[in-house]
């Protein structure tokens, strides 16, 4: 049942400043601030970079540099549901390449894409540290091991996808 209610939090400068302030008191706290912003807004909004530069006494270029270096920090919102499929060696040894192809077919998305209606994001991840029960995925932040194509389909169904 597709829905079109994206969990995007509108930009709110006051909220962003409140989120940044405690992190700015930590020495080297820029990553913490980026995590906190992403937690609050679902991504790191462009508008927050100027506030971060001010709070950490950095140039905006430096803030962009840090934000763009790390895979976790996103400059655009993710879908309502996020699926990550591990692409690293242990999962490769248990069929992650096939599982990835299956996921891409079922969802009609390639790794790194979000569906047009903003409902689902499919993403690559490199090692979830659950290598004893490969292949692994996460669905909405929850980890699942030994994911066959059938289990993948069941999990999707359970999540209403």
């Amino acid at each position, binding site marked *: 049942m597709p829905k079109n209610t994206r969990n995007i939090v509108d930009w709110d400068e006051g909220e962003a400043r409140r989120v940044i302030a405690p992190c700015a008191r930590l020495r080297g706290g820029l990553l913490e601030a980026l*995590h906190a912003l992403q937690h609050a807004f679902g991504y790191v909004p462009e508008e927050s970079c100027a506030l971060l530069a001010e709070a950490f006494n950095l140039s905006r270029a430096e803030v962009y540099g840090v934000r763009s270096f790390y895979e976790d920090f996103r400059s655009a919102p993710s879908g309502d549901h996020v699926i990550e499929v591990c692409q690293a060696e*242990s999962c*490769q*040894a248990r069929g992650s390449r096939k599982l990835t192809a299956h996921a891409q077919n079922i969802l009609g998305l390639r790794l790194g894409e979000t569906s047009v209606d903003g409902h689902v994001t499919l993403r690559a991840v*490199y090692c979830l*540290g*659950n290598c*004893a*029960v490969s292949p692994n995925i996460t669905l909405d932040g929850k980890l699942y*091991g030994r994911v066959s194509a059938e289990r993948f389909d069941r999990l999707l169904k359970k999540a209403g996808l």
Partner: protein
Amino acid sequence: MSDLMTIYVPLESTARSLGADDVVLAIAEQAARCGQDVEIIRNGSWGMSWLEPLVEVVTDRGRMAYGNMTADDVPGLFDGGCEAMCLGLTAEIPYLGNQDRLTFGRCGLTDSLSLDDYQTHGGFRGLEKALGMTAGQIVAQVTASGLRGRGGAAFPTGVKWNTVLSADSARKYICCNADEGDSGSFADRLLMESDPFCLIEGMIIAALAVGADKGFIYLRSEYPLCKEILSEALITARAAGWLGENIKASGRDFDIEIRMGAGSYVCGEETAMLESLEGRRGMVRAKPPLPALEGLFGQPTVVNNVLSLATIPVILDRGAEFYRNYGQGNSRGTTAFQLAGNIARSGLVEKAFGISLRELVTDYGAGTATGRPLKAVQVGGPLGAYLYEGDLDLPMDYEAFADAGAVLGHGGIVVFDDSVDMVAQAKFAFDFCALESCGKCTPCRIGSVRGAELVAKIQAGEDMADNFSMIRELCDVMEAGSLCAMGGMTPIPVLSALKDFDRESGQ
């Protein structure tokens, strides 16, 4: 029904990824249904991952294990319907019983977050001894134990600590590298989730040894459960006076902060990790200066892997001699071998150095999970060598592996069956390097991209001999000219993967 029934269900990622939380719910429901009083204890994992969720029921004889438990199986725990799933007493399962559990001695045994449980099973004894020693004596113990860095580089821990101890500075730091990014590795996570106080104790001892008053755990963001468990353990330890000001009336202060990584593999490299902890891009620093002298915020810093630090308490408690009696040659003590990928009995095996790869893969691991012939084994993560049938008698020992052109690394062992395409694995090694390179040095940043292109040409069957020799030349440059192991060691998986192809194709 009468007496209280005690059931252990792991609170650990692998068990939870296979439905442990559903099992807990089902136990509570079934208990209510039959009017049975049940106490559910969320322990850590014993590391017998292929049996997860591994549920244990306390009996007069001890803890009886039931493997691969699902919510549907739960009623059988109450009415005896599960007897076919019973594995006997947990402690007598040979996979576990034959290990040398020194660092992981409490994992699975205890309630991860119970300080009482921790202390009942030897917790804080090492620290109590350390509190009665001088800094120099602690460092001497660690040096004498022969402990080498378990993150992969295998640098002697005592030597590193001594450098930090000797450095003259008002501020020193302990940084725990918990950015366990190697595929096939999960020992750091398993320890942090199963025995978080052990890591905390190790860090406090490190602080006493070098004169630090502040510690950081740099934790990868892929481990959210570790963050929850460690955060709670830190609060508990602080409340009990093991952290903070004037630890146990010793006059010493030390506290620990968790900082999250953000999905960058190269931040597992110690200098990139320090940059990241300082809030910058995770760009590798040139060495010297050594982090031991100019590390975090320019101050003398101990950077140690989770397992190095978590091994410190047992060394202080049982003594350096006890620890160094395990192992062989210059590889003293035990380490955590992690059996992953296509292997029947996957999990964590803590053994003294010297056990052969074959014993681990065949005796413990029972061969491939698919039942097909084993083709290759990658040891030591994405920067480790692919080994083949003829290499399996190699002893797990730092020097023996180095002599064979391989690395033990962090002890991850990924098994592949004969369906693996080794050229694709070589391509992946370059692709991964291109994806994760910090970009600071040219051999890594550009070499990885060019290398992937060359392997693609081989996959397409173009100028095989020329492209092979160009890859070898490129690998020479990357190995000799890269700033860190990312570019410097990528040639190891590439060439070891292609060595096999080379042999088969007769090129």
